[in-house]
Structures are given as structure tokens and as C-alpha cells.
């Protein structure tokens, strides 16, 4: 395996590119800084967790979330319009018998606005190549050992829809507030590599 370029070399390459594009009038420092700031401030798995918590306490919201997620998430003040055009959101619900997990085998498509910046493992060739073929083995590496009778569905985000998993509400959480429920939800639960 070829070694990665030293970071200093790559950083210099980026500086040259940036200077060239600014000189060409295609962007400027303020725009670039603003993009980074908004990205770091807005994209968070807390957004996905709020959607899940609402779905756990509100059956009507849950039904709309699973049939028309883009309009449903407006209820909690969210949208899929963070980029140039609105992306389609598909929410897939885990049940007693079915577990869902998300991947993008062709690149790294991911609902960043709802889940935050994607982790390196999600973008790795190892995860992308293996999870469509041996999801049970991959999930076991995350410590998620599903019963043999559980049906696993892997969703390859190969076109214009982004996918988010709706985990099952854990037992023993009756009476908790929506905020308390949201705090139980992890990024991995929203991808499907954890139960919640």
C-alpha cells in the first residue's frame, strides 16, 4: 500500500488550489469560512435523534415519517434543504423481526444534516464492500449480535434518496420525555450499526 502524502505536502496543494480559485473569482475567504462554520454548527446526530424521539411518542408522526419523511420532519423544525436542492429522505423502521442498516457502496451518500459529518468507517472501502454481502458479520464487529431469525435489510443509497434508520424504542422507557428519549439515540443507531 502506497503511503499517504505527508500532510504538509497536501496542505500546500490545497493552498495552491484555493489561491487559484480565489484569483479566478470563483470563491473568497469569507465564503469558505462561512461554509465550514455552518457545516460544523448545523449538522448533528441530535437532529436525527429528535426525529426518532418524536416518532416514539407520536404514532401519527411516525406514520407520516415512514411515508413522507421530507414533510414530516418539518414538525420538529428540520428539512432536507441544506444543500443546493432538497434531498429525498427515506426513513426505514426497525421492527421485532426486521433490522435495517444503511450504506453507500458507490461513494459515501449520507444524510449529513440529520446525522452530522459521516465517520471514516462509513466511508471506508471495508465497510462499503462488506456490509451488502455479510451484514451480520459487520454488525457483529460493532458489537451488535442479532438473532438468527431477524431479517436484515441493507439499504444502498445509490441514487437521490438519503436513508435514516428508525430504531425500536427501548423497553423500560415509559414516561420519559421526548428530550430524555432523544438522548438515548446514537449516530450508530441512526445508521443501523447499533440497536438505538
Amino acid at each position, binding site marked *: 500500500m502506497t503511503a499517504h502524502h505527508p500532510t504538509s505536502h497536501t496542505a500546500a496543494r490545497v493552498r495552491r488550489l484555493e489561491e487559484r480559485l480565489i484569483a479566478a473569482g470563483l470563491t473568497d475567504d469569507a465564503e469558505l469560512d462561512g461554509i465550514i462554520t455552518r457545516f460544523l454548527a448545523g449538522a448533528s446526530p441530535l437532529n436525527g435523534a429528535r426525529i426518532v424521539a418524536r416518532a416514539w411518542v407520536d404514532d401519527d408522526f411516525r406514520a407520516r415519517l415512514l411515508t413522507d419523511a421530507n414533510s414530516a420532519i418539518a414538525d420538529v423544525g428540520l428539512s432536507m434543504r441544506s444543500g443546493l436542492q432538497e434531498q*429525498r429522505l*427515506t426513513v426505514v423502521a426497525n421492527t421485532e423481526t426486521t433490522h435495517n442498516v444503511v450504506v453507500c*457502496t*458507490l461513494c459515501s451518500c449520507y444524510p449529513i444534516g440529520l446525522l452530522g459529518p459521516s465517520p471514516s468507517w462509513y466511508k471506508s472501502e471495508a465497510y462499503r464492500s462488506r456490509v*451488502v*454481502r*455479510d*451484514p*451480520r458479520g459487520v454488525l457483529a464487529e460493532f458489537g451488535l449480535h442479532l438473532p438468527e431469525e431477524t*431479517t*436484515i*435489510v*441493507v*439499504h*444502498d*443509497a*445509490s*441514487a*437521490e*434518496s438519503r436513508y435514516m434508520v428508525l430504531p425500536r424504542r427501548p423497553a423500560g422507557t415509559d414516561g420519559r420525555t421526548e428530550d430524555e428519549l432523544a438522548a438515548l439515540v446514537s449516530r450508530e443507531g441512526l445508521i443501523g450499526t447499533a440497536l438505538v
Partner: protein
Amino acid sequence: MTMADPATRFAAGDRVRALSVDPSHHTRLPRYVRGQVGEVLDVQGVWPLADDRAQGRPDPRSEPVYTVRFAAHDLWGEGSHWVTVALWQSYLEPVGTQERPEEQ
């Protein structure tokens, strides 16, 4: 033969085969489903064809995109799970009829 709306050729429950093609340009038809038969689960709306957009065509064709479910055993010869893939209409052909589609 039925003449369905030409804009949307398939419906939920239809069996479809992903084309066995190997384009030299960008495509969103993953290799592992090419030539494989799956079942349409739903229609994800109409979207510009990625293949056309990647080639910078000013007027990319827009087509329905389908969620198609494949059985792991068909894809890999083993496994009991399912894989759903989102596929543009022109990546797919009908299964269960000897007739070839007339258009294109």
C-alpha cells in the same frame, strides 16, 4: 399488452432485471446488481439521470427512480438478508415477459 404511463414503467411488486451493461461513463448502477432480478418496492419520484449529469449534458433526461429489493442469495449465492438499491428506470428491464420494451 398494457400501455402503462410511459413515464413510469414499473409499479410496486413488479419483478425487474438490472441491465447487464458496463458503461464507460459515470453510472449509479452498482456492479453487484447488474444482470440480477429484484422486486420493485416503491417509486422515489423523478430525478435527472446521473449518467447524463455526469457528462455535463445541458438537458439531462429525467426518469423515475425505484427502490428495488434483491435477495442476498441471488446476489452472493448465500445469505438470508435483503439489499435495496435505488435505480433509475433506464437501468431496468421487465422480467416475466418475452417481449422486449418497444421504446428506446
